[in-house]
């Protein structure tokens, strides 16, 4: 066994061994204000109150139980049976983002969203935003009906008003995010035919205009191509967070995950280089990551071009010299795997993207990993047209403006100007579903349905179609936006009929000749997706017509190698995204994959800048700073981010909503104000005119990263480099041994326990840390499935977050802990490892033995069961849990006005509709934890029993594994030798013993030395590096 010399730390305070941190670290429950009085002692008054309560409780208990009604349907729909879920295929689309989904409904209420496995785009997977979107359906903030000039109205009045005012309005502009729906485009055509001067202006808050524009310059086609990360052996990304937020992250994460799967039989994986300023989630997964300044990024791309051109014998372009570590190495790898490599850039600068196109062209990736022949239709927004529109709006040249499900006042760089300009249009209409920043300024609010209440179709990619269908009757008096457009255009047809007609004329005409239309339609609706494209992912190349030299000189002019000023890089978080769903508490409380911060945005700064400015950050405590960008200034807290390029600052979009709803309002600061759109595209990198000043005000950021620490037991993360792995499959493994009777034996050989027997099932989970990208989709999926409470910022600060599955993010470096200089370097650019951590379902569970009331016990299927109604809240179990995965209900989070503003799913009548009726909502004073979705296990077993058959592998799956876009989590029955989990772990024998002989070299138990014998196995992280280095 090779000793790992790496140092792992969860936060800088741990790395620096801060005394405050050390003081708290070994406490399960940190010092907190007492629930009884400020001084922590119970006063006489409290005693009397409590006594009064117990008397009341006792007398209440003696009363008759309340009369409960059982109200059946008058006329029961054939396909709805109480207690039996129905599933409907539908589609999520928002702001140019897309996912084909399957919606689980109970008694007519959508309660859970999973990916649609038939979709060739997201392949059954989702991300946190899609997973959480079901809660937005039950948002109290939604508009409940149409309104005229702020007054509630009815549809007939609104329609009459709109029809007459539009008729004489003159030029009509429909502003929207990317429209993916072909039928909606047809509806707008009909609308245009009725009113004449109509134009659709699309923009996207997270713009990818640069790619589209560059494709136009270089290939003569204004499209965004398909990318095939799964076919790339070398991936180079310049600031593109393609696993988190870039173009089609779910799809890319799935492709990327495939290249990170590794086994003894197939020990190959992709090599991923990332050059970026902020530490993004994608950068955290890279094998080689180089922090660079945004002002250098264009030059780095040019330098890479020149290196490749040198190898290819093409003409180099002139560019200023720039020192970028690992760039030469990247060029060599790219060249070695040409035709199976991929270079992408997150820059929105068309010139940079032209050079990227040229690099991919030189590498022969065009038609292999980049496919312009299969363009995607996500994020087709046109920044320059939108820019022009703002001028027109301000100038009063626009007669009528219709905001179609978009919120530019909030999420466009020139939002403030739009807000002023709306009044200059004679008519202003919005179809937005909530009275957001834009909708609250218009004359006519014609709210659209939520997507789970709507009919629609989508074409995310050429030839790929999908349908959206209602999964619930509209909750409010809203109307589908397309119906509004049709009505205003004077059409009698409803959108549903219109949609069917479109499909009859287009897809059915080409695909469905042999079947009646109804059958074709029903099948399409059942499947949710229709694939009219040729054989999938058969890429073809297109011919370049552009020239790289013009772009190169533009890049040379715009970027500089030695910018000494501060630089601001505005990014979007994996959870909050562009801010559309900021009113969703599940997303607000989801810790950011990298910073592990909840309920806030902040300025990420480098360690060096913090030291220079006298800022140190101990856990949540930090200070505020003011950032000024060309005259505009904002004050926000500072977060010291290891891996942040020196001289750069990161600032997340999606916060600072003013009319987002009670959850979103006042959380964080709006970064859209600082975006620069002066160059004709929305520029997320501001490299001049940025100043940052510390204000000295202290502030607390609610971060979960240092909660539940492992106290220096460093073998929880086990990793190796690919080179070592190829020589020894158990490279990086820590194999503890214990001395017994004169010899060293495995910890599992010594036990106080007899060991359980699992005669039927033995549920287990295998987690591949190599393909876990940290995206936290699992975490939100778990929240939705298991009714996990949201506790709000203050309670997260009190370390009382309730997440059943957390993703531990570890930084690591080669430098030993006592090498201070080395550590400084390490914190500039550490390696990152993600480790999903949930109840390990130990066979020798330490929690079970300490519970005084046997509220946590072991099942005959290997599960560690938690019985809420038996728990008396001693919290011994949590204290004795080595993994710190148990959560205590310090408060009653449901039906409690103190939490009504954050825990909406358990407080509003509306929000409660999202609860999973098969899982108990926990009360105050009980412990809870991951149950391995026991309700799903029970349901799956019951189905098999009813059908008198054995359980098939895969039919029961836990919510986290279902959501995981990279299949990093695999759940199954370890007693079934043919199950996927058994095969991954290489369990050969079919034994009923709890201790399975696992032959996979990479598989290990966290804290194996204490022999609690978990049923969750982790696979070592393998980095595709030449040698172990930070």
């Amino acid at each position, binding site marked *: 066994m090779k000793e790992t010399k790496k140092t792992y730390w969860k936060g800088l305070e741990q790395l620096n061994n801060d005394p405050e941190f050390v003081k708290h670290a070994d406490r399960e429950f940190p010092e907190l204000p007492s629930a009884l009085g400020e001084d922590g002692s119970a006063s006489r008054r409290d005693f009397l109150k409590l006594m009064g309560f117990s008397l009341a409780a006792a007398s209440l*208990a*003696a009363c008759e*139980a309340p*009369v*409960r*009604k*059982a*109200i*059946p*349907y*008058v*006329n*029961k729909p054939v396909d709805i*049976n*109480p*207690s*039996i879920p129905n599933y409907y295929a539908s589609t999520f689309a928002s702001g140019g983002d897309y996912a084909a989904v399957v919606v689980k409904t109970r008694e007519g209420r959508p309660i859970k969203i999973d990916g649609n496995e038939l979709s060739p785009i997201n392949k059954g997977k989702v991300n946190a935003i899609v997973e959480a979107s079901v809660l937005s359906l039950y948002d109290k903030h939604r508009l409940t009906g149409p309104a005229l000039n702020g007054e509630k109205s009815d549809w007939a009045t609104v329609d009459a008003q709109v029809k007459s005012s539009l008729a004489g309005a003159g030029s009509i502009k429909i502003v929207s995010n990317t429209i993916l729906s072909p039928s909606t485009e047809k509806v707008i055509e009909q609308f245009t035919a009725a009113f004449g001067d109509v134009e659709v202006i699309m923009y996207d808050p997270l713009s990818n205009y640069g790619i589209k524009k560059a494709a136009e310059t270089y290939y003569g086609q204004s499209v965004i191509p398909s990318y095939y990360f799964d076919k790339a052996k070398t991936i180079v990304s310049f600031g593109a967070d393609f696993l988190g937020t870039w173009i089609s992250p779910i799809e890319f994460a799935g492709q990327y995950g495939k290249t990170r799967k590794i086994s003894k039989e197939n020990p190959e994986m992709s090599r991923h280089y990332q050059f970026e300023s902020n530490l993004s989630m994608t950068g955290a997964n890279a094998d080689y990551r180089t922090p660079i300044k945004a002002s250098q990024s264009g030059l780095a791309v040019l330098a890479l071009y020149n290196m490749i051109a040198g190898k290819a014998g093409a003409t180099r372009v002139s560019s200023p010299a720039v020192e970028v570590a690992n760039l030469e190495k990247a060029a060599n790898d790219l060249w070695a795997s040409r035709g199976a490599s991929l270079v992408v850039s997150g820059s929105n600068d068309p010139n940079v993207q032209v050079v990227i196109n040229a690099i991919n062209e030189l590498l022969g990736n065009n038609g292999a990993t980049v496919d312009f022949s299969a363009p995607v239709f996500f994020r087709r927004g046109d920044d320059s047209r939108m820019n022009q529109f703002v001028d027109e709006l301000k100038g009063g040249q626009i007669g009528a403006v219709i905001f179609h499900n978009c919120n530019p006042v909030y999420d466009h760089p020139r939002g403030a100007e739009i807000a002023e300009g709306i009044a200059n249009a004679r008519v202003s209409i919005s179809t937005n579903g909530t009275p957001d920043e834009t909708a609250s300024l218009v004359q006519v609010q014609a709210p659209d349905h939520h997507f789970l209440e709507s009919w629609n179709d989508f074409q995310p990619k050429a030839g790929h179609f999908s349908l959206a269908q209602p999964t619930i009757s509209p909750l409010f008096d809203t109307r589908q936006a397309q119906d509004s457009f049709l009505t205003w255009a004077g059409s009698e047809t409803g959108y549903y009929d219109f949609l069917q007609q479109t499909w009859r004329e287009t897809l059915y005409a080409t695909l469905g000749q042999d079947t009646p239309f109804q059958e074709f339609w029903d099948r399409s609706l059942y499947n949710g997706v229709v694939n009219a494209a040729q054989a999938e992912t058969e890429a073809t190349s297109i011919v370049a017509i552009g020239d790289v030299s013009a772009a190169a000189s533009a890049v040379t002019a715009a970027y500089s190698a030695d910018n000494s000023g501060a630089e601001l890089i505005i990014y979007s978080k994996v959870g909050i995204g562009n801010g559309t769903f900021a009113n969703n508490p599940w997303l607000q409380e989801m810790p950011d994959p990298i910073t592990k911060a909840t309920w806030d945005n902040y300025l990420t700064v480098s360690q060096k800048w913090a030291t220079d400015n006298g800022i140190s950050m101990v856990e949540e405590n930090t200070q505020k700073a003011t950032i000024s960008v060309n005259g505009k200034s904002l004050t926000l807290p500072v977060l010291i981010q290891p891996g942040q390029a020196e001289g750069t600052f990161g600032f997340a979009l999606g916060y600072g909503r003013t009319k987002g709803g009670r959850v979103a309002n006042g959380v964080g600061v709006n970064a859209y104000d600082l975006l620069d759109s002066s160059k004709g595209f929305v520029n997320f990198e501001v490299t001049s005119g940025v100043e940052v000043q510390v204000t000295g005000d202290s502030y607390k950021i609610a971060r979960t990263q240092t909660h539940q620490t492992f106290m220096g037991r460093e073998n929880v993360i086990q990793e190796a480099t690919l080179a070592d792995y190829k020589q020894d499959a158990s490279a990086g493994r820590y194999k503890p041994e214990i001395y017994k009777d004169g010899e060293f034996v495995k910890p599992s050989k010594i036990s106080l326990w007899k060991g359980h027997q699992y*005669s*039927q099932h033995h549920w287990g989970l295998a987690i591949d840390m190599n393909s876990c990208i940290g995206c936290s989709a699992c975490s939100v999926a778990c929240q939705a499935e298991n009714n996990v409470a949201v506790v709000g910022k203050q309670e997260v600060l009190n370390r009382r977050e309730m997440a059943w599955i957390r993703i531990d993010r570890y930084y690591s470096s080669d430098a030993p802990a006592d090498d201070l200089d080395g550590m400084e370097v390490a914190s500039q650019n550490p390696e990152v490892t993600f480790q999903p951590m949930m109840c390990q379902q130990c066979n020798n569970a330490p929690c079970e033995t300490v519970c005084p009331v046997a*509220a946590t*016990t072991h*099942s*005959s*299927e290997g*599960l560690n*069961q*938690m*019985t*809420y*109604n*038996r728990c008396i809240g001693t919290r011994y179990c949590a204290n004795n849990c080595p993994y710190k995965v148990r959560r205590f209900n310090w408060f009653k989070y449901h039906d409690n006005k103190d939490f009504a503003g954050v825990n909406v799913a358990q407080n509003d009548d509306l929000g409660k509709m999202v609860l999973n009726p*098969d*899982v*108990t909502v926990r009360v105050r004073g009980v412990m809870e934890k991951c*149950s391995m979705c*026991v*309700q799903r296990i*029970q349901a799956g*077993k*019951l189905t*098999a*029993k*009813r059908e*008198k*058959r*054995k*359980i098939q592998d895969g039919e029961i799956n836990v919510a986290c594994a279902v959501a995981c876009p990279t299949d990093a989590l695999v759940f199954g029955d370890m007693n079934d030798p043919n199950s996927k989990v058994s095969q991954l772990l290489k369990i050969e024998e079919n034994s*009923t013993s709890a201790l399975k002989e696992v032959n996979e070299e990479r598989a290990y138990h966290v804290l194996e030395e204490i022999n609690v014998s978990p049923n969750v196995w982790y696979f070592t992280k393998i980095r595709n590096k030449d040698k172990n280095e930070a």
Partner: protein
Amino acid sequence: MLSKRSLVGVRWNFHTLAVLFFFLIGTQVFAADPAVSESEEAISAGKTVFNANCKTCHKLDQKAVGPALRGITDRQSIEWAKRFIVNSQEVIASGDDYANDLYEEYGNLQMPPHTFLTDTDLDNLLSYIEYGDKVDPAAEASAGGEGGEVSGGGGGIPTEYLTIIVVVLVIVLLLILIVLGLIISVLTKYINKQDLPEDDKEFVSQKFDIGKVLKSDGFIIIVTAIVIALVAKTAIDGLYGVGIQQGYAPTQPIAYSHALHAGTLEIECQYCHTGVEIGKSANIPSANICMNCHTHVQNVEGKEGISPEIQKIYDAVDNNKPIEWVRVHNLPDLAYFNHSQHVKVGEIECQTCHGPIEEMEVVYQHSSLTMGWCIDCHRQTEIAADGNEYYDKLVQLHSDSKDALKVKDIGGLECAKCHY
């Protein structure tokens, strides 16, 4: 005990004589048309058709909503029977006397047409009607002879014997007491006749002082202890009873009688409680299920007009306003109970938990629904593993044991089977 779940089974003894009588005559009177096939396949295929289409209103040997069917091919031609099944209204309209008499006899209830049945279906159906599910009179008689104690508890001494033993014991003890009293008085008389010292005399003639006993410490302690024990037991019993609604029989918005529907008419439970074999909820029937029959049945016992109770169903349907039944069986939210697990998989009869539902005019909570009650049953109940591949491995692993495979043996007592 696992027998097929049917109401007939439970009502066995009440009907035994009637059925026996019926069959003694029936087997002689009814003879089928020889053209009706007696083959097993035809009968079983016919049974499927019967169960799907006819069972709601007809029985083979008894009147139900419609007439008893057996012997129809003897009473009428096969052709006639088929025509009538396919479209009875047509036959009635054609002026057929027999058909019109039937129609009148059964309160002018229309039988829905069955035009979708093929000729083979009809042949099979008639086979079943004539030869299917015949009850063997000999078996009947022997079942009757046993006194009809089909259901009930296991072994042990019957309670009557216990009472007799106790009474006999009490009598014996009383006799002994009297004999002892007689002996004492005889001995006292004898001793008094002797010349005794003063001490002994006093001892012999001393009186029994009840007051002294009552004031003695021992007595007070014993009585106090008994009183405390009784009070404590009552209190504990009372506390255990908190929240238990055994016997709860709320008034329902419609005076619906299970005794009539499930008992007299013998409608299968699943006809209304449609979810019982597929899901967690058994389902309170929606009004449209009531209307399947009550479109025709508008009053009870052949009375004229619409019954006010049945009118409530019509009101609900007309106003699209659901009937708000009062829930009788309330499990706490923290306990997960699934009907299909027990009824479909476990093959437990409804009556095991719900009691003699077919005798209830107003439904009441028969069982205590406490966790102890659940657990007791899980301890005693055997797994219905026969023919269920899911249990194969468990049965195999359990084969060494002498005891039957019970719910408790496969984790049926674990917390997370019901609490999550």
